[in-house]
Structure formats: C-alpha cells, structure tokens
C-alpha cells in the first residue's frame, strides 16, 4: 500500500527521466551499435573481405546511376510540375498525362518497357533520319545519327544509359507532383504582386514563386533522392552491375548467401540512413528559418 503512495509522490522527476529517455533517438543508437558489430565481424572474416572487393565497383555504379538519373528526374519534374499548374489546357493535359502514366506503372515495368521497347524504337527512328540526311548529302553516310546503337561503331546505347533514362522518366513524375504542391503552396498574392509590378508570368515564376517553392520542397526532394538510391537496385534486372547485381552474381557462384546479402544490405543502409539524417537536418533548418 505504501508503495503506491510513494510512487505518486515522486512522479515528477521519475516521469521526466522516463520522458527524456523515451525522447532519445534509440533507433540511431541501436543502428550504430549494429554497424560497429558488423564492421568488426567484416574485418575479421576473410569471406567478407572477398565480398567487399567484389561489390566495390557496384557502389560506384549505384551512386552514378542514382545521381545522373536524379538530376534528369528533377529537371523533368520541374518542367512537368510547371505544366501541372499551367492555365494553358494543352500544356496542363500533357503534363498530367505524363504524371498519371508514370505514377501508374511499376518502376520495374517502366525500366523494361523503356529499355526494350521505347529506346530501340527511338534509335531506329534516329537511324532512319540519319540515313535520310545522308541520302540528300547533308551528312556523310557514316554520320552519328545513322550509326547510333551500332556496337561496331562504338555507339551502342548500353543498359546503364537505358536504365538511367527509364529511372529519370519515372521519377520525374513523382518530383513533378512535389514541385506542383510547392508552387501551389505559395499564396496567390505573391503572383499578383509580381504581375502588378509588370513582370510577365515566366519572370514572376522564375524570380518570385520558384525560389520560395523550391525552398519548401527541398526535404521531400531529398526523400526522393533516397528513394531513387534504393530503387536503383532494380537496374540489376537489366544486368547493370550495381551493388545488387554483383551481390547476386557472387552469391550464386559462391553459395555465400547470408554473408553476401548481409554486405549488400549493409551498404544500402549505411548510404540511405546517412542521407535521411541529412534530410532531417535540412528540415529543421528550414523550419527554424520560418
């Protein structure tokens, strides 16, 4: 009986301690501990050394695919996002069509479709155009357009490039919606003030609306970058030798499934968690700036 009265008399300090304990980012501590344990295991195990050496080139491929595809994706996204807020019905409908199609397709399907259907078709058309220009003597017969995609001419469009194009088209649709939301979050008065000073629509967008909108959408764009890093593992389906593909190759030949996929997961996690901490910092900075 006494115990119950005791605890009710000292709840404040004890409550505060449990509260502040609950506030601690335990998940980071657990992760960091796990990482340290894993690194120690990796260092002391010859098999892990071999796996790391085998996957090292994949890290570069994964990062390269992610960064290039992302740069194109936000460019497409900005253009399509501006189209989504346009009052011109043709531009609006084209942008909406693009966004709806791309968001409705699984990314793996987009990768396969772009790589094996769209790009071969486009290359063929470019070849036809190049041959036509050669036939009217505008270009030599062996011009770049006519030989595009030809392996012997060194103009092959390899699967890494195809994968980058597909990821960029796909993710462009997601970032388009982020840009649209950002632009729409800026009050109508800003556009009116800019227009009343004599700026045209594009000048007002460029100097007044977009600088504010882009600041607001930096955190979601950062999250998109992390998502892109993870989704880039799908390029392994095209045989592009990223971390995932090299992991599949190594495990299939050595039967070291546990250790290989431990390493694969560890590599992705250490990149995505570092990036998500970066996005968190960015978020709090933007919040305190108002």
């Amino acid at each position, binding site marked *: 009986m006494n115990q119950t009265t005791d605890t009710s008399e000292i709840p404040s300090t004890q409550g505060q301690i449990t509260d502040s304990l609950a506030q601690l980012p335990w998940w980071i501590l657990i992760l960091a501990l796990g990482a340290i344990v894993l690194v120690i295991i990796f260092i002391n195990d010859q098999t892990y050394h071999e796996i790391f050496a085998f996957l090292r080139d994949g890290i570069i491929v994964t990062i390269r695919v992610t960064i290039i595809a992302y740069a194109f994706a936000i460019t497409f996204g900005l253009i399509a996002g501006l189209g989504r807020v346009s009052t011109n019905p043709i531009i609006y409908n084209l942008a909406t069509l693009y966004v709806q199609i791309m968001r409705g397709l699984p990314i793996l399907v987009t990768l396969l479709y772009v790589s094996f259907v769209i790009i071969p078709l486009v290359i063929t058309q470019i070849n036809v155009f190049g041959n036509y220009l050669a036939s009217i003597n505008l270009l030599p017969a062996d011009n770049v357009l006519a030989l595009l995609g030809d392996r012997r001419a060194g103009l092959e469009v390899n699967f890494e490039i195809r994968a980058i194009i597909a990821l960029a088209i796909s993710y462009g649709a997601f970032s388009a919606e982020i840009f649209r939301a950002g632009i729409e979050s800026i*009050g109508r008065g800003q556009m009116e003030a800019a227009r009343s000073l004599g700026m045209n629509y594009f000048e007002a967008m460029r100097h007044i609306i977009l600088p504010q909108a882009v600041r607001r959408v930096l955190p979601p764009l950062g999250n998109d970058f992390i998502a892109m890093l993870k989704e880039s593992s799908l390029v392994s389906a095209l045989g592009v030798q990223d971390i995932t593909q090299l992991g599949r190759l190594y495990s299939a030949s050595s039967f070291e499934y546990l250790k290989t996929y431990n390493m694969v997961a560890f590599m992705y996690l250490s990149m995505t968690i570092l990036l998500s901490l970066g996005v968190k910092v960015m978020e709090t900075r933007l919040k305190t700036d108002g």
Partner: protein
Amino acid sequence: MDNSKNEAMVVIENVSKHFGHVRAVNNVSLKIKSGEVVVIIGPSGSGKSTLLRCINFLEIPTDGDIWVDGIHLSKKTKNINAVRREVGMVFQQFNLFPHLTALQNITIAQRVVRKRSKQEAIEVARQQLQRVGIPEKEGVYPGQLSGGQQQRVAIARALAMNPKVMLFDEPTSALDPEMIKEVLDVMLDLAKEGMTMVVVTHEMGFARNAADRVIFMDEGSVVEDTTPHDLFNNPSHERTKLFLSKILK
C-alpha cells in the same frame, strides 16, 4: 479615340465584372485626371476592390473598356505588362516577397522589368526607402518588419517603378491601429507631391484631408461621386447617409 481619353489618366467606361451570378461591378464609368486623388468608399462587398483591380487587369472585366494614360485595355490586350509597369499597386496584405530583403524587394522588378543596372536600381531603391522613412531597414527581411514598415516597403517598391498612377487596396486594413498613421502619412505626402492616386479605404480622415473626390459605391455601382466636403456634409442619397451614419460616430 476621342480626346478626353488622352487627357484623363484613367478612363473607365461601362465596366462590369461578374463572378458567376454575382455582379461585383455593374456598369461603372469613371474618369480620373492626372494628379487627382480619388478615394473610393463603400460597404464590404460593394465592388470597390474589384473595380480597383480591374484598372491594372488583375481582374479582367467581363464587359467594358479601360484606358490608362491613353493605352486601351481590353480582353484581347497583349501589352498588359506595358500598362502594369505604369500602374503601382499596394495591397491590403502587403505581399512583400519574403525570400528577399527590403532593398531586393524594391530592386527586383526594376531590374527584371525596367532593365535597370544593379547600381541604378539600388540607388532608386535607397531613395524610395528614404522617402517612406525607413532607410535603415534595407537589409532586413519582411518577416522581421512590423506591419506598418512592411506596407511602407511595399509602397516604396511600387514607387520605384516610377508609376503614373498608384492604386491602394485597403492599405491600412491589416494594420494594428498604432501603425495606421505612419502609412497614411506616406500616402498624404504622395498626394501633396501630385501623384495620381486611387485609394480604396475605410479611413475617412484620409478621404477628408487628401481626396479631391470621394466615390461612394454600393452593390457594384457608383452611388455618389463628389467632393469630400459635399459627401460628408450633405450626402444626396439615402444609402450614402446610412453608410456614413454607421461609420462616423
């Protein structure tokens, strides 16, 4: 085009603006001479703000014609930006650009629209900040300024474009009472300097002291258009009397 349209700074002819079934402005005609200060008063929803916004085509009139400094505005007008840069506008909510400092707020349109050099734009901006009495705030972002200071920067921003007409859309309605005077003082100075001004406001003191004409609007139409003395001392319409009795103690 007849001559009167060239003489007057702003000509509004049979202008109507409908929002769906609501007739915000109903067949209004007005002429405002160069250097004239016109105050528009009326109950909320009387169409006075909409009429003001029609003058620089922030609202495109459903019907009618507008001339600003002899330039004709109609639905098909392509040179709308050419007109807008001659018409300064001050908003109830200030609408300063929050990502730019006070000085940058004033230079941006000069540089983009007037194509002035950076140096020249900054010089003009500093002069205008001096004119509205806050030269020391040039490096400050709008979020750190009081409402009255923000509105004065907004006035400076409009003036920096060397407009021929200034439109004020309830410039003091969003301000705390103790800040209203500092904004009205700037507007009074402008009026004395001979700026053509069209002011929508509830500040009857400003209408009395600065206006050449006061226009009373109700339900989208001009009810009375006369001198401040006549309007306040012997209004000719019942609706004007009713409105004034409510607003003046």
